[in-house]
């Protein structure tokens, strides 16, 4: 996908640094995400991909660098700030309350209120149910009723609820952390269809996954991280075997497109 030169990218992270005590988790990472683009983010464990996404979603405050959302410099100090800017994170462990129904989960923490009685906001339940149903229909998610408790749904359906929640409030950027881990093969293909559907509806998506075939099948562009640095950033091309071979070479450190830059910074 060719980025448009006029419009600024929806997300631009520049030279992001984050340390945990003596560990340099992020050593100056750049990331760009264009409108309507799916960016795959891969790397071995401890490469820094989850840390980078937690910085983008407001869960971590970076020690250095800057974040531009649609060209505007942004400071996020907690996940709610990021949310207000239209950045939604779908967590690996789902962050869903199994004892509540689908509607309650979609609107969790952002309930529609019909009247405010002192400290008590009165829930506008029907409106929320209706909107949740519309959302599921729009995303072609197959769940028989928005009144079902989430504990009665399959793993794939639960993941779909978590993703639908991220889409509920006209978000610009959706970050998915391992959305296909721990799912059956059939459920994985449904979740990937959902990712394509989100993209078709204009969302910009960053997807972290260990499953390279999933990244290959939905992403426009791929970014590989290793030891807290970006080592590869390119469009997804070629056949799957070729793709996998190349990506693995970057993941294990056999290849590095940004080595000279890193040396220059270090030197």
């Amino acid at each position, binding site marked *: 996908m060719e980025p448009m030169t006029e419009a600024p990218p929806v997300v631009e992270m520049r030279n992001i640094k984050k340390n945990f005590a003596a560990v340099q988790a992020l050593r100056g990472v750049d990331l760009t995400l264009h409108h309507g683009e799916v960016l795959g983010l891969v790397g071995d464990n401890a490469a820094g991909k989850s840390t980078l996404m937690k910085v983008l979603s407001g869960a971590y405050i970076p020690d250095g660098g800057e974040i531009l959302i649609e060209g505007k410099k942004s400071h996020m100090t907690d996940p709610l700030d990021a949310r207000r800017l239209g950045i939604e994170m779908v967590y690996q462990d789902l962050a869903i*309350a*199994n*004892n509540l129904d689908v509607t*309650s989960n979609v609107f969790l923490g952002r309930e529609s*209120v019909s009247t405010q009685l002192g400290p008590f*906001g009165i*829930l506008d339940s029907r409106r929320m149910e209706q909107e949740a149903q519309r959302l599921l229909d729009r995303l072609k998610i197959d769940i*028989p*009723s928005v009144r079902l408790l989430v504990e*009665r749904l399959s793993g794939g359906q639960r993941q779909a609820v978590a993703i639908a929640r991220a889409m509920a409030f006209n978000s610009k950027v959706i970050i998915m952390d391992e959305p296909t881990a721990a799912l059956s093969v059939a459920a994985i293909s449904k979740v990937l269809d959902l990712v394509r559907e989100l993209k078709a509806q204009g969302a910009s998506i960053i997807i972290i996954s260990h499953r390279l075939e999933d990244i290959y099948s939905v992403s426009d562009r791929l970014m590989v991280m290793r030891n807290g640095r970006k080592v590869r950033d390119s469009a997804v091309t070629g056949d799957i075997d070729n793709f996998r071979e190349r990506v693995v070479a970057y993941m294990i450190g056999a290849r590095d497109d940004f080595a000279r830059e890193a040396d220059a910074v270090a030197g």
Partner: protein
Amino acid sequence: MSFKDVLKTQQHNIREYGMYIAFVAIVVFFSISTKGLFVSSRNIGNLVNAMSYIAVLAVGMTLVIVIRHIDLSVGYLAGFLGAVAAISLKFWHLPLYATIPLVLGLGLLAGLFTAFLVAQMKIPAFVATLAGWLGFRGALQLATRSTGTIIISDKIFNALGNGFIPDIPGVTFLPGVHKVTLLLGLVAIILFIIGEINNRKKTQAYHFEVLSMNMFILKLVFISVVIAGITWVLAGYQGLSWAAVILVLVVLLYSYITTKTVIGRHIYAVGGNPEAAELNGISVKKITFFVFGSMGLLTALSGILYASWLRSATTIAGAGMEFDAIAAAFVGGVAVAGGVGKVTGSILGALVMASLTNGMNLLGWDISIQYIVRALVLAGAVIFDVQTRKGAK
């Protein structure tokens, strides 16, 4: 929606229906074995008064268990606050309208202090409230040490736990029946039916599934008959007691808060998955303060009802009440793991346990057997609960 899906959405109701059936079975059993004495107006009136202070505690305990905590301190706190009420009326000569807010305020403070220990100091609720159990027990003994049992002579205060709502004087039809109680029962039935019909209409307007017309009418008739029956029985003695009125108001208020408000939904979200709640901007700390604060307030109300019912504050008031409240909540379907349980369920649980005690007393069963029967009912209810929950998955 297929039939299987309908079953799925209804499955969580099976637990509730099971409890209603068990309650009806208990009532029928004791009614027959006591030759009608159990369902006599006088007995039901006493039963309601004797359970009200436990039921009030059970309402607060429901929310505490839903957010995965427990409160062992409420029994002696209720006893201590009852003693404070007695001392305030008798020795400080404070009027009733000052005493009641004072006691409720102290209850709220005690609840918030527990919340501080749990939410701020991160002490497990079991330990924090065990300390409260010891502390309030000591406070109760300290308060009553010089006087022993304090007799309360304030008539209005004592009416809260013993008195009945007034009737219209000079009405001659239906002698011996409490007319205001009948009228209130009728109003309740009408409001219930109007509310249900409105709710159904609105739900249909939004194209959501509703009960079939026959089932809907059956439900309306059944609940109306139950309300009418209870009203008739109560009206046959001295009518609705003040304790019953207070209990009904507490249940209505808490049912509304838990099912219709944002904070109610957040309480269940915190109980179901505290991390998820926090990630979605819900403050677990704030919810913990709210829930324990409300527990403290209801404990104060329970203490007032209990002292009023006994017309005195005793040196051992409140002993074991916390366990009755916890048992009522568990019998009423509150899940031990948190996140699940209704206020109305806990009230039904309290009613089941109180009916058992009352019925067994009428039959003159030995107290040791009574404890064992109640143990079996508690264990049986929780086993049923766990099994239906498993089956539903």
